[in-house]
């Protein structure tokens, strides 16, 4: 597995290959906690302005401008305020945060400390997905190291800034990556998303103002403070600042985590050259899902020769989305009915069951795919699937429903030939066993 930066200096990945990069000593030797010191000499507004200037957008998938999110927190609230780091990385095809948490935990602590200082937060939680237990142990050690060095706890670096850090674990629920569901889960309840408004910035954890940010978002903050927001932004494009991590998996020779500047040109080169090309040389690229499973899959002919730039705008223009930056590369051996069935099962399994369209819709869709796969496909199924997706999209309580709909719609619309093969058989069984 590759972990490297292409087209820019490694920022996020700076310490990935340094021995003991996860320790405080090495972190400090490589410039760590200098940004915190710098930030502590700035005002809240200055810090937030730098983050705004950086055009940093949330790296969890929704891409909401981080500076704006921070500015929503009522500064004069008498209630305690919280920063919660969303380390519930569960989007299929996404595994970047795992390496940040494993090899550079102090970057996260520093990013959260800067946010905490700017927003007047005294308690930070890091919410891990339950499966990442070994990472919690690493983080707990890092927090303890930072505490010994007076970077966490009371009177940080001799100032009157206090900030406490705690790790918390989920227990296997994709939906808890949604920020309000994460907060429900952190309060010990079922991970159901909550109504917005009120947004977490106003009423989040324990009904107090709360900022929920993805790991990569927070680890970007020290760099932004160090370089200055404007300069960081200029690494990328005007609307998509800085660099971004992309997780690449599937049929490529060199899967891994790649740091690219926003606006990287182009997608074809990235897959076919930077990632080592297709896994099996004789198999051609068929599709790529660029943003974790929840976005429209792209056909090879939407990528090859199309000069797709890798940033928020470029991918939308090309017919998909950045999402969480999880590339799943698929070669021509894969039947898109099969792969879509697989993802539909995922969404059904992970639907929290709160709202009707997502709960019943994904259940129904899985049953249709099961029937198709067992050889019972009907010509009208494609239309039925699209109509059901339309009935879920935009009507569900939270974006999970939309995500499921997009993943499925994309496949049906863009790979009709795969579906036709199954559906025209009309009950005569084109399916194969197992899935």
């Amino acid at each position, binding site marked *: 597995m590759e972990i490297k930066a292409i087209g820019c200096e490694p920022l996020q990945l700076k310490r990935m290959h340094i021995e003991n990069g996860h320790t405080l000593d090495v972190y400090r030797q490589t410039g760590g906690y200098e940004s915190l010191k710098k930030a502590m000499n700035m005002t809240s507004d200055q810090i937030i302005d730098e983050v705004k200037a950086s055009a940093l957008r949330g790296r969890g998938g929704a891409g909401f401008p981080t500076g704006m999110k921070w500015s929503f927190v009522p500064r004069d609230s008498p209630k305690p305020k919280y920063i919660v780091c969303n380390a519930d990385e569960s989007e299929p095809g996404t595994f970047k945060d795992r390496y940040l948490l494993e090899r550079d935990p102090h970057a996260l602590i520093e990013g959260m400390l800067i946010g905490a200082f700017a927003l007047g937060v005294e308690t930070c939680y890091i919410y891990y997905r339950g499966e990442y237990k070994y990472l919690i142990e690493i983080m707990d050690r890092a927090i303890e190291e930072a505490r010994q060095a007076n970077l966490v706890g009371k009177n940080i670096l001799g100032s009157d800034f206090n900030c406490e850090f705690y790790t918390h674990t989920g227990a296997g*629920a994709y939906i808890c990556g949604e920020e309000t569901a994460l907060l429900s889960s952190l309060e010990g309840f*079922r991970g159901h998303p909550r*109504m917005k408004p009120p947004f977490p910035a106003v009423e989040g954890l324990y009904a107090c103002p709360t900022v929920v940010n993805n790991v990569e978002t927070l680890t970007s903050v020290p760099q932004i403070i160090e370089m200055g927001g404007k300069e960081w932004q200029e690494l990328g494009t005007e609307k998509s600042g800085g660099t971004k991590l992309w997780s690449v998996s599937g049929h490529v020779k060199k899967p891994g985590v790649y740091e690219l500047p926003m606006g990287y040109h182009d997608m074809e080169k990235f897959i076919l050259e930077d990632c080592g090309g297709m896994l099996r040389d004789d198999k051609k690229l068929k599709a790529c899902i660029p943003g974790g499973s929840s976005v429209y899959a792209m056909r090879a002919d939407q990528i090859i020769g199309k000069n797709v730039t890798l940033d928020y705008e470029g991918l939308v223009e090309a017919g998909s989305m950045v999402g969480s930056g999880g590339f799943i590369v698929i070669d021509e051996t894969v039947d898109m009915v099969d792969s879509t069935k697989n993802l539909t099962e995922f969404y*059904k*399994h*992970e*639907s*929290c*069951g*709160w*709202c*009707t*369209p997502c*709960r*019943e*819709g*994904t*259940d*129904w869709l899985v*049953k*249709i795919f*099961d*029937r198709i796969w067992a050889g019972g496909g009907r010509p009208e199924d494609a239309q*039925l699937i699209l109509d059901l997706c339309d*009935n879920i999209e*935009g*009507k*569900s*309580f939270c974006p999970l429903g939309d995500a499921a709909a997009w993943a499925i719609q994309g496949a049906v619309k863009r790979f009709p030939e795969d579906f036709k093969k199954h559906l025209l058989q009309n009950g005569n069984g084109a399916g194969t066993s197992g899935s």
Partner: protein
Amino acid sequence: MAEELIKVTIDGQEFEVEKGRPLIDVINEKGFGVPSFCYYADLELQASCRMCLVRIEKMPKLQASCVIRCTDGMEVTTKSEEIEKAQRAMGEFLLANHPLDCPVCDRGGECELQEVIFDWGDVEERFDEPKNAHPEKFLSPIVANDQQRCILCKRCTRVCHEWMGEDAIEAGNRGSNTVIGTYGGWLNCSQCGNCIEVCPTGTLLDGVYRHETRPWELDQTITTCTYCSDGCQLSVGSRADEVHRIVARDRYVNGINGEFLCIKGRFAHGFVNHGDRIKTPLIRYKKGGKLIPSTWDDAIAFAAERIKESKKAGVVATSRLTNETVHTLKRFADECRDGTSYAVSDTYDLAPFFENLSAPLCTHKEIRFAETIVVIGGDVDEEQPLTAKQIRQAVRNGGANLILVNDTPSRLSHQASQFIHVNPGTVEAFVLALADPSAADMAAAKMGIGRAEIDKARETANATKGDLIIMFGKELGAEAQAVAANLPSRHENRNVKLHPLAGYCNSVGASDMMPGRKPVADVVAGSDALLIAGSLSDEEFAAADLASKPFVAVQELFLTDTAAAADVVFPAASFAESDGTYTNNDGFVQRVRRAIDPVHQAKPDWMITSLLASELGADFGYSFSASAVFRSIAESHEAYEGLRYPDLKDETRPVRVKHKLVSGADVSGAVASLRDRVSQFPDAADKITEEPRVGHKLHRVTTMTGKTPQFHLLANGNPKPDDLLVSPLFQFNPDGSPKKEEESEVAAG
């Protein structure tokens, strides 16, 4: 306070509405109509069913109108192709795994899912995949559950949490595997059945009524509950002179309780048509002989003769009787024979309270919106469930302060902002501490609490700007009641309201109807001929030695200990068989209506008494009409002046009786004697720390509740059967022991 009015446009029509109201309410009120399942007034919002989607200008997606608050200039579209498609789609999704077994579903005919699909759903069903199936099973002896019909609106889990404070039923599992249920699949709770009531589908079903009849075959009669003093309005479903079920569903009845009822009100109606009802009048011609069935004429004549012969007659009413009956008994005592004494059998006598009443009684609605609620003694959860629910909602949804003074922890004490846990039997000392600050230290010592607790409660009360409600239970003796009734006059600038936690459905009314009554023991001891309507309490019965009385006549439903000791027993009609009124602890006088004809030869109690009176020569002029009796009440009781039955016909607008308010009464004597009594309380005592199990009073088997077999199982620990698919009644004996195989086969066969 006038609400700010704003303009909202719905489907092109402009309306003025109060700012911040839920959009769904406005849409439905103005007659446009959007369907909904999960939205339920005064419960936490969910926006999960997605039925109530509308289009609001400047908002990107369709919005669930239940969570949208009206803002100025809002432009709403409720009907368009897009919205109709969404509504059809949600209906289709909800029906996907729904079994569509309406022909065998108890809810068929009054099912919200059915109605919404008829109005908004699709004609064609596209789903033809295998359905997720769950077997129909029992969650408890009286809650049956068909999970497959569930649409996961979670009204049940929310009423359980918010109304009952129990968290007994919850959603488990995830996604399309989500089920409503409990850990272990067995429901151990107060079994109020509100989850059944609010269920919009046939998922949670009344296990007492299950499969008895179809809802459209039932006659619905709006009447008042015959159990506690809250006076819930309910609908008796009857068919062919048989009561089949009781509901509070808002399509049938809209009383002070909304759709709320407790286990007794909802399920304990089995006594009405029970085979043990007394079928004919009974006469014991000779002491030591047997009670022999007779005719009404003979029984009335026999009783009249005996009463005529007696030296001194006595009348005992009970507080479960209608106002009409108690009033008639009072007239019987006054007009038939000089010097007849009379009494009301109740858990405690409210006379000292009403004599010193210095503020109006508070209504249940006022409890819901109160700012501070002080509950002194009582056991609201078990004895006045509606009051408990209102308190809970006031605290949870309205942020009210709850100060609970009690010697026993309860469910409510978890929600109290201040739980003053006093020594056993010392609740009265708190009233003393409130009335006489100089005695506060002594009272605190006797209650085993710090003085600061009293001061804190007093501060909370003093800081209250809205309604301050004081409730008290039966622990308060006569002096304490008088002092409590006088408390509001000490807070003249405050909105203080009183709420007696009275014992029975007509405790307040019976107290109104019989001024000048004596204690039961005095009347029994001082009379050689007794007319008892209802039965004496166990203690009263033990003390009375009825067998030694020359003559006792009893009007009863069942051959209770009291009735069995009588010389003449008249079969009385139950609440479902007679017309009348009850006065509840809000002071509302509410109608009791005849749902079925009296069973066997039973007659309404007031009619029996007036027949006896006319045999004794007194004509009350009732002409067999309950409304004439009520007119007589209105003419002879100031508080009921001018009222007639037509005034009471609308249960949504209950009528208050005008209890006389005494302001500035001198209660110093009562305070002094209360101080004396409190000073004699022991100085030290062990506190009761164990919280009694939920239902310890609600599930008690009594003459009436015991006629519903499910109560026996609940009272005996609600054992969980091995087989949840078969009614627990077939698997257990009434004492809770498992039935042996052959027995259960016979029972099941």
